[in-house]
């Protein structure tokens, strides 16, 4: 079962169960690393209908381990789309009204060109031969997709965590193409602590003998143990101490007493092992390296002479930022500094901090206050954009 799913993940890299847009040698993707990616492809999903004025498009940017299957059953896991609580017919982001696009990021493993994709120069998977990808590179590829649809201005760009970084990059680099922006649980740069956690994850992957210097697919292997450990460590950062205590406490897993061994005595251990194991079934280890690196490199202020407000100078985009009280990966202060920069740039900005003990991952969950804020912001932006209800 797991092996089959893993094989399916590999197939998804080159021949995904999503529409794919291929860019030939005439349309290379310019990379921040100073080189180009060509040819390359972008896998995406869309929902709803683009109106005649092409003014009702919402681009959803996915997080580190997310994918383009935002509002449909995931072809690899068989689970519902990762934001189906928010997006769909009659939902807060109503696909009866809006044309929703979500693309797998460059460097990902579900159909957009990434390390598991076949390198046309060698006929083998790229592995570490893929140049380093940045958040800005991801956004450039998304721009080419948006151009393909003939959309001059996106009604909204929305995303959480790494998705929020892409939203900020869109607003900074292509503000005239973004009517409204909704970055959630994110930051304008990756903090030292966040880079530290990512480095732990990468070292876990690379310490796995099955990683084979990144060429594991050539050996028919996958560094599952290393990637599982990386996921376990990262998963802790997505939750909060309070939520862990509430859910698991010191409860024992299917046993009456401690076993005086290293089995998963505690529920939290069992839970984390499960998280690690299911993750390796659906995600490519090298992709994990590339995407964590992209987040680490993100520093929007540094890209604009060290002053974040300059990233948004003259912007007409309407912003709404959301943070969560118990998020220690992207604490409220990260959002607040973006708000200050937007205020300094004279931008239209709303900022909501939501009280919850569910940590960083709260943005993926059913949080009524989050939905109320998104709903209010989108409704007022739609009025301003002249979109009928």
């Amino acid at each position: 079962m797991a092996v089959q799913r893993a094989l399916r993940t590999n197939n998804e890299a080159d021949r995904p169960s999503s529409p794919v847009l291929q860019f030939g040698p005439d349309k290379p993707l310019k990379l921040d690393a100073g080189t180009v990616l060509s040819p390359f492809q972008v896998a995406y999903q869309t929902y709803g209908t683009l109106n005649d004025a092409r003014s009702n498009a919402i681009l959803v940017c996915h997080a580190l381990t997310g994918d383009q299957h935002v509002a449909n059953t995931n072809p690899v896991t068989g689970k519902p789309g990762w934001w189906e609580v928010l997006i769909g017919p009659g939902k807060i982001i109503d696909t009866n009204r809006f044309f929703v696009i979500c693309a797998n990021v460059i460097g990902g493993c579900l159909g957009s060109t990434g390390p598991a994709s076949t390198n046309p120069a060698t006929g083998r998977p790229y592995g570490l031969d893929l140049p380093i990808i940045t958040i800005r590179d991801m956004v450039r590829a998304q721009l080419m997709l948006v151009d393909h649809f003939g959309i001059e201005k996106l009604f909204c760009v929305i995303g959480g965590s790494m998705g929020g970084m892409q939203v900020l990059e869109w607003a900074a680099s292509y503000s005239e193409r973004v009517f409204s922006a909704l970055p959630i649980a994110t930051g304008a740069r990756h903090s030292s602590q966040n880079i530290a956690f990512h480095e732990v994850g990468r070292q876990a992957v690379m310490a796995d003998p099955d990683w084979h210097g990144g060429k594991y697919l050539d050996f028919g292997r996958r560094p599952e143990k290393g990637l599982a450990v990386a996921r376990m460590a990262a998963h802790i950062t997505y939750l909060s101490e309070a939520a862990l205590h509430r859910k698991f406490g010191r409860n024992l897993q299917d046993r009456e007493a401690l076993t005086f061994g290293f089995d998963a005595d505690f529920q939290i251990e069992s839970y984390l092992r499960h998280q690690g194991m299911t993750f390796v079934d659906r995600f490519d280890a090298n992709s994990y390296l590339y995407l964590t690196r992209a987040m680490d490199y993100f520093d929007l202020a540094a890209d604009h002479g060290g002053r974040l407000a300059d990233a948004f100078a003259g912007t007409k985009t309407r912003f709404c930022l959301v943070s969560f009280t118990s998020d220690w990966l992207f604490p409220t202060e990260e959002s607040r500094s973006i708000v200050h920069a937007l205020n300094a740039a004279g931008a239209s900005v709303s900022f909501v901090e939501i009280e919850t003990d569910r940590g960083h991952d709260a943005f993926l969950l059913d949080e009524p206050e989050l939905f109320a804020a998104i709903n209010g912001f989108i409704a007022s932006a739609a009025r301003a954009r002249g979109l009928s209800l």
Partner: protein
Amino acid sequence: MSVNRTQRVDLEVVTDLIPAHSRVLDVGSGDGLLLELLQETRQVDGRGLELSQRGVNECVARGLSVVQGDADKDLEFYPDKGFDFVVLSQTLQATRNPKLVLDELLRIGNRAIVSFPNFGHWRVRFSLLIKGRMPVTKDLPYSWYDTPNIHFCTIRDFVNLCEELGATVEKATALDANGQKIGLSMPWWFWNFFGQQAVFLLKR
């Protein structure tokens, strides 16, 4: 979204001072009443800054452009003359540093509109003079120990502060206990005695 206009006459006085399509920052925007009123009747480009997170979340859910922040700390991030009007409605007395806040309002806005409860009103004076107690009135319903209002001033005090900051009073209105405007021809001492609230339009 209808606004209950009878309860807060001071909001109407503020609204009357603002021309259509102005850029307005409402500092201490609370539940968003004024911003909503301004958007409805003046089609302003309105933004809010509010301390209480609950107030902010409710405003955003209603489609208003509001951020959580502190008038004492967060005004410094706004650019010079970024707004046509900066409004501080019934909030000055709750700030830690009213002088600095007022200075910031005059920097950020081409004009500042400030409304505040007048501590020189005769009821306040009466309470202190005769009863020897800190006043608790309809407008100032808190006891001394739980009040968020830490920097009360009278209309005369406020006029002095404006002079000190080099601000010109372009227009001033005092409202009596019934929310009626006090006649323009009345002298300052009369306003200071019978005005329960004051609304000032300032420029620097």
